[in-house]
């Protein structure tokens, strides 16, 4: 009797300790979830904080005279004369008229540093669009140099960064600011231009086009092949060793590091079949092989979710096995397959390691127009910019990341929406 009372006592005494342990355990769980969510939050705020500035860029207003003698071009329709023209003289002269007091070699060089080195070519494009401007004078907003841009933005935000500015340049910017001749404008270059060594000139258009071309090829190849493989494995494959072997291979390929696919592409497509480097064709092929397992696995799940009664009904009505699959199972499982395909494409869009292997990491200024033009893709562009030493590229990189993430968010939202909208519960 006394023993059982002792036991009860023991249990009662330990209760508060056990309840404390229970509470602690619960807090561990909450902390874990909090850490995960905090990581998401910190990551996104950090990127947005760094990148939001890149959507606006500094312009300086100058008075430009399209002086024929200075450019050395008389006939605007002659391409030879156009390439020989001294376009930088336009922006340089404009700067000198704005600050007539500046003299001396080094001072002048600092003065020219206010404006982007590509500004002359922007003026050239402007002149070609409006040929009657030749010989005229007008006030134009010109793209500022990246150092000026970084300084001006940081100065506006109250957190001045002037490490790469000279005292004179600071003075000039101040003067321009008081006259209202320097301002931030929407940065359309970011969306309309290809890559450049000058941060203020660089844009993501080329990388976005490269990603688009690569993804189109990936989708065209991997979706039909993946769906066919899934149909075979779910509906037709006999239960034997060969089928098991295929399944083991698919499951393993899904977990093979992506960089290995890059090695495969390099050794087989480039070295053996002599497909040129850096082109969307190779990129698309490699990403196809990489996304195939994902698409096969999700398509199989979609086919599996179609109840057998549907197949039995079709077979009972005299349909052949193929008619059953093509007319009934496939249409019913298509939403699930599409969801899988979109998720696979999102994965392919964010992938960069295998593409480094096959040379899609080159510095490419031109915007690719076809599957066999040298191109790079958005994540690789991010990698390249992140490696660049110029401070202004940090902002650019973050902006490119924001754009990449918004593409991914849109794709995943569409996938979720499709699943919710079209999926049938049996």
């Amino acid at each position: 009797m006394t023993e059982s009372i002792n036991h009860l006592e023991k249990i009662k005494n330990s209760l508060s300790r056990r309840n404390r342990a229970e509470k602690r355990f619960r807090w561990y769980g909450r902390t874990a979830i909090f850490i995960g969510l905090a990581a998401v939050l910190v990551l996104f705020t950090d990127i947005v904080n760094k990148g939001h500035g890149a959507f606006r860029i500094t312009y300086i207003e100058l008075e430009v005279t399209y002086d024929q003698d200075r450019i050395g071009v008389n006939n605007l329709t002659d391409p030879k004369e156009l390439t020989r023209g001294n376009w930088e003289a336009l922006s340089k002269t404009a700067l000198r008229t704005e600050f007539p007091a500046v003299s001396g070699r080094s001072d002048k060089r600092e003065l020219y540093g206010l404006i982007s080195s590509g500004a002359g070519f922007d003026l050239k494009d402007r002149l070609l669009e409006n040929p009657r401007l030749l010989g005229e004078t007008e006030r134009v907003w010109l793209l500022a140099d990246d150092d000026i841009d970084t300084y001006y933005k940081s100065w506006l935000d109250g957190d001045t960064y002037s490490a790469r500015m000279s005292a004179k340049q600071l003075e000039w910017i101040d003067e321009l600011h008081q006259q209202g001749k320097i301002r931030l404008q929407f940065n359309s270059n970011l969306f309309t231009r290809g890559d450049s060594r000058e941060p203020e000139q660089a844009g993501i258009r080329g990388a976005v086009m490269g990603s688009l071309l690569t993804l189109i090829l990936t989708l065209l190849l991997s979706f039909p092949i993946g769906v066919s493989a899934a149909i075979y494995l779910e509906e037709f494959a006999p239960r034997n060793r060969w089928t098991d072997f295929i399944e083991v291979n698919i499951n393993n390929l899904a977990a093979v590091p992506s960089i290995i696919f890059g090695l495969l592409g390099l050794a087989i497509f480039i070295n053996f079949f002599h497909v040129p480097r850096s082109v969307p064709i190779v990129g698309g092929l490699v990403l196809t092989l990489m996304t195939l397992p994902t698409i096969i696995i999700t398509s199989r799940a979609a086919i599996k979710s179609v109840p057998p009664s549907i197949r039995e009904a079709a077979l009972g009505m005299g349909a052949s096995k193929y008619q059953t699959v093509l007319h009934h199972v496939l249409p019913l499982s298509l939403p699930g397959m599409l969801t899988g395909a979109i998720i696979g494409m999102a994965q392919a869009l964010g992938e960069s390691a295998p593409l480094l292997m096959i040379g899609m990491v080159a510095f490419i200024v031109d915007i690719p127009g076809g599957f066999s033009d040298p191109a790079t893709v958005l994540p690789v562009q991010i990698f390249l910019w992140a490696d660049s030493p110029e401070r202004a590229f940090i902002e650019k990189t973050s902006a490119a990341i924001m754009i990449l993430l918004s593409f991914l968010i849109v794709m995943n939202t569409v996938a979720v929406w499709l699943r919710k909208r079209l999926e049938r519960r049996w």
Partner: protein
Amino acid sequence: MQATNILILILGLGVLAFFLGRGRSLALAKPLGGIRQLHSLPSYYGMHAALWCALPSLFLLCVWMLFDDSLINRLVLDSVAAEIAPNDTASYNLLINKISNLADGILPRKGESAALVAAADHLVSLRIISSWSLTAVLLTLSSLGLLWGWSRISASFRARPVVEKVMQNILLGCACLAIFTTLGIVLSVLFESIQFFRSVPIFDFVFGLEWSPQTAIREDQVGSSGSFGAVPLFVGTLLVSAVAMVVAVPVGLMSAIYLAEYASKTVRTYAKPALEILAGIPTVVYGFFAALTVAPFLRDLGASFGLSVSSESALAAGGVMGVMIIPFISSLADDVITAVPQSMRDGSLAMGATKSETVRRVIIPAALPGIVGGVMLAISRAIGETMIVVMAAGMAAKLTANPLESVTTVTVQIVTLLTGDQEFDSPKTLAAFALGLMLFTVTLLLNIFALHIVKKYREQYD
């Protein structure tokens, strides 16, 4: 004519064949009293004709494209004058490039020797012959196929089984692509690795303690013999992965337990997808975050404690990698925890155990094999992860177990060795493939083992 144009032409002919075949079967059926008298539906006769028309041509096109270039190059080289004939592979490639550039007009013809110009002209003419003969052969083949498929159509012809048989083989081919991919990976990596091990003994590679991959330009230069000891790389990889696991396993596991056992339905519906966002973020973004935010933060933090933390520390790369892996572990663990039968929970709770005691003493032991499998899959992912380490970890191979120092990993070295200028027969490039072989073998073994455990476990409770 270009390959794409030919492809479109063949496909167009296939569509034409489909309609011709269908039309003929309909015409045959009319006097017999409708399509009921045919063995198969009219579209099957169409498909049959289309397959006969397009498939052989497509096959031939593929074969032709594969061998076209090398055959033409061979023919051109056989015809060139003896004085410029190449004597080894390098000069062979150089010569082919030069001739083809001359032929394409990329290089100016002025100033080149007569033999080269003649070879270029020969190349141009061969290319034209090849492309026209290809077109002619393919068109003939397609037309013959069409004619054959069309002529076989009769009321008693069993078109459906034939078409279905062909379709089944096409589907099988698609499924077998997975095997070919694996085979391709193994062959490409193995082939180059064997070449590498010819110049560097395999023992030195696997057990060597020094990694400085360079090849001599001159015989007598300083440090001309590069050393390819991969141990520092393995250690670096393990160090980064270990840091990642220290972050990912507790956080992932605890959040899975909380979401599966404690959280209300509303918390679950919002927290789970929010955590899974982490899995959808591209690795290059994590790399940027690690290199530009986490690493400087850790360095400054270390400095305020008087510790010297490298700005490319294993801690930064590994920590961020761990964050990336959290959702991977949590979703795998969630699967196995929810697969534990409810009766086991009920039994434990009925004996008076608290919820946390049930989790710790009953559910985790029951789910352990699955959790271990999941962790192993996560380790294999951490080992193979590339972009984060390329951007945030170091380049120099250091043999250290201190996570505050900078280390390099296998994947970083593969990327460094293979980007930039390279020739294919130097040990430096081939070393990347040997590293790839190591990486592939290790991850493959981990995956097979983990999948085996998970599968076995699943069967236990199903």
